[in-house]
């Protein structure tokens, strides 16, 4: 291969040389500058060829004397990792870092301070729509008005009666809210002042097999902590994951700092990892952040029984889907589970504390808050209670999750089960004069056509929900690829979904994606296309097909 290149170089070199000598003989009409530039290029190529030949000789000599060319570099040119070695942070050590070039960090105002606010939340809800894949009207195990302890069974899916869904807090089940077609959307619990936990039956982790463990986890409600890829659904009863992936950093806008979140929960986190290790036939993979200024929490870096992978790059590098793609891509028939860090802690606590303790830190973020900070609460907390007294504006949108893939909620609604973030944004229902031309308001953008955004890349923006333009057909190309660090062609995938082309959807890798992975593409989309909705339509179609 290399000799082919060298030959090609030499041929090109000769060609250029002949051209320029001819040209010099006859050029006398003012194209001197061009000739100089060409000559310079020729000289540079000549040098490159000389270096390349010298390098080849050196390498040949090295092999001849039997030097270990794998380990040591016997070349004029530095190796790629030597060149960029200095940029690899020292805390990574000898591990390799997967550097992802594509992506974009949306920098927003209102990041949470690293301290924990005291809030009192009176109601919590468990929301069946959070658990994708179950029937819309599950069977209730408790009557309205009944009292439960944290960890008591609340409902189950009639297709999978062994997988239990349990109460996050103790108290009285006060109401049951329904949505479209009478689907149950919220089961609201009025929480006790003093939380009571159901004492879970103990389980001998060391002397039991995988089936026993799975049955135990299903019975205590822990199955709902797992999310099965493809499709991002609750795993089926007999599902055995090929691998389990956990991302230990979140690059989404204003996302909680998981190093802060995990502080003090090292034991539960490690226990959770141990349990996961028994559930999979493959490995538990931990995605670590090599892009930060300091090392990730020691709880992550010292975790045992897991494969660690370092990643650096902009959002969506922290998304577990992106990390899976670079470690061991999802194929249509395989099963991979993913968990959030706080879910791992909850899982670990079943074994360390013997109870269903969903206590978690939630980052309450956004520019419309007086004091963005963390709050300590249980899963499914009422959002109005979390934000009480903190809003500085009432014309806002409240989001459970981040601004890219979170869900719009009202103050009367509840935090989604898997979310550890609430974001509050200003509603952007304003008109902007010549908005397509002048940047009247500084809002985040990935486009280089807005020079301030390109030059002052550290600026923190106050975003709002305005669409900044109307929906159009797909026109611009290459835009999605520039923010999605995966070997996937999103625009073609979207078109395959829109035309119901199953074969193409599968071929183009719909199984590797869920909404959060494609969310940044939707953000940058010039045509304002609803990519996440399109993707979910496609995923649902594939899921129904089996």
């Amino acid at each position, binding site marked *: 291969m290399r000799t082919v290149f060298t030959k090609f170089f030499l041929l090109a070199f000769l060609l250029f040389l002949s051209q320029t000598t001819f040209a010099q003989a006859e050029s006398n009409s003012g194209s001197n500058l061009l000739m100089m530039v060409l000559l310079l290029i020729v000289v540079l190529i000549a040098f490159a060829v000389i270096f390349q030949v010298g390098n080849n000789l050196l390498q040949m000599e090295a092999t001849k004397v039997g030097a270990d060319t794998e380990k040591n570099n016997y070349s004029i040119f530095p190796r790629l990792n030597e060149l960029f070695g200095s940029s690899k942070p020292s805390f990574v050590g000898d591990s390799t870092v997967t550097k992802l070039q594509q992506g974009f960090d949306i920098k927003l105002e209102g990041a949470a301070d690293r301290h924990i606010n005291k809030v009192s939340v009176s109601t919590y809800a468990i929301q069946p729509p959070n658990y994708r894949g179950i029937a819309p009207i599950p069977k209730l195990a408790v009557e309205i008005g009944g009292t439960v302890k944290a960890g008591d069974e609340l409902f189950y899916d009639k297709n999978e009666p062994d997988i239990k869904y349990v109460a996050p807090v103790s108290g009285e089940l006060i109401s049951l809210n329904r949505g479209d077609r009478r689907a149950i959307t919220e089961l609201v619990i009025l929480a006790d002042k003093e939380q009571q936990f159901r004492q879970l039956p103990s389980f001998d982790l060391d002397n039991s097999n995988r089936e026993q463990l799975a049955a135990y986890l299903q019975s205590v409600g822990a199955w709902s902590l797992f999310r099965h890829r493809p499709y991002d659904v609750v795993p089926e009863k007999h599902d055995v994951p090929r691998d389990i992936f956990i991302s230990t950093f979140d690059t989404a806008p204003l996302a909680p700092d998981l190093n802060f979140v995990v502080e003090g929960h090292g034991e539960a986190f490690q226990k959770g990892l141990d349990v996961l290790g028994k559930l999979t036939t493959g490995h538990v993979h931990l995605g670590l952040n090599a892009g930060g200024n300091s090392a990730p929490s020691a709880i992550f870096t010292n975790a045992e029984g897991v494969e660690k992978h370092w990643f650096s790059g902009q959002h969506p590098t922290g998304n577990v889907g992106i990390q899976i793609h670079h470690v061991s891509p999802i194929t249509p028939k395989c099963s991979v589970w993913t968990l959030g860090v706080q879910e791992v802690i909850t899982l670990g606590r079943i074994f360390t504390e013997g109870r269903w303790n969903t206590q978690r830190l939630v980052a309450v973020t956004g520019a419309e808050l007086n004091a963005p900070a963390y709050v300590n609460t249980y899963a499914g907390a009422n959002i109005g209670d979390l934000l009480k007294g903190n809003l500085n504006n009432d014309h806002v949108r409240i989001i459970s999750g981040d601004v890219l893939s979170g869900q719009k909620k009202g103050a009367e609604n509840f935090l989604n089960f898997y979310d550890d973030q609430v974001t509050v944004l200003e509603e952007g229902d304003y008109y902007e004069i010549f908005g397509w031309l002048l940047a009247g308001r500084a809002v985040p953008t990935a486009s280089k056509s807005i020079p301030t955004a390109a030059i002052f890349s550290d600026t923190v923006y106050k975003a709002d929900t305005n669409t900044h333009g109307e929906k159009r057909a797909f026109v611009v190309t290459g835009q999605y690829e520039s923010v999605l660090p995966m070997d996937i062609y999103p625009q073609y995938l979207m078109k395959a979904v829109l035309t119901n082309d199953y074969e193409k959807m599968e071929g183009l*890798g719909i199984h590797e994606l869920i909404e959060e992975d494609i969310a940044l593409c939707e953000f940058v989309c010039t045509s304002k296309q609803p990519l996440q909705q399109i993707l979910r339509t496609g995923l649902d179609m594939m899921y129904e097909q089996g």
Partner: protein
Amino acid sequence: MKDLVDKVKAFEPDKKKSPFLHTLYDGFFTFLFTPNLTTSGKGVHIRDRMDLKRTMVIVVFALTLCYLFGMYNIGHQHFVALGKHTNFLEAMHLKLVYGLIKILPIFIVTHVVGLGIEFYYAAKKGHGIEEGFLVSGALIPLIMPPDLPLWILTLAVAFAVILGKEAFGGTGMNIVNIALLARAFIFFAYPTTISGDQCWVSGIEYNGALASGEVYGWAHHFFDWIFSGLGADVFGTGGMAVADGFTGATPLGLAMQGWTAVTEVYSPMQMFWGAIPGSIGETSKPIIIIGALMLIATGIGSWRIMVSCLLGAVAMSVVLNIWNFDVYMNIPWYYHFYMGSFWFAMAFMATDPVTASGTNTGKLIYGFFIGVLGIIIRVMNPAYPEGWMLAILFMNVFAPLIDHYVVSANINRRLKRVKQVA
């Protein structure tokens, strides 16, 4: 600000009674104000500032210098043909005004026809006006000869917009480049108005072997009245004989006889800076390159297409140099970039995202073949002096095929992975 919105909204026509007027109103309203739409709540909650209007307008910005130079050059070529004011910077006011009088009707007719059709279809289909014609409408005047009869232009624009775009479903759905389709229509339907030696210099009337300048019209007389009042040079009545040795041929027309035949009439620097006859906007290379750099810097135009297009053209002309079969092939490869509309085609035509390849790999292949084909048509086909229009239209048709193979490669990589696991 809110008052202004309300004032404009007072004009809103009833959508049911007059859908066309409402579409028109909506088009102008959204042009004036970015609408107050918010994200639906079912996907992202914040959106990038970038939208299609801005994308399109940046391309138009990149073209403005071409317009200015083109306008001036129309006047300059006219006067050079008459042997008056032959220095480039002489009598600037006359050249500018002459160019303006030529270019304005072309610009207006293009937009009235193109936008009219666009508005009509938008009203009929009940969607907002899409911005596609902003760029097509800015490109079409620049690739026409200055003396093109306006009725032919009308036909061409109507043909391109209806059959090239609306028939396929509007902005973003077309297979071939609208602006080039309009030009190709004229090229094949009315070839005498857009090829040969007699159409590139404006205002020269050919009468057998004799040629003379046009008799100026009322617009020129109106400006004469102003200029004479200011004591500056005036147009006069016109009808003058052309200068000795005037041919009106473009460098490409002469290149058939080899490079020396070209340099007898035009110096390389003259060709580079663009003071030569040709289509309105494509003569000045530095100005087009500025526009191209602007497109690359803002990320609107694909650098992949531009670079590979350049490489393709270089590679093919080097190959032809080596082959060296006739005097045209003998023209040194770098001189191909002084003549003709390569730069304009590369920067503004090939990079149209709708008709180009959509994948990054595909863009490289697509651009390269445009470069190769353009030079082949230019040099090896005596019937067509310039090749870019046909090369780009040809590759427009092939772009989906290129993408198909690039995407299939991606699918196959994934399939292989499945097999490895299984």
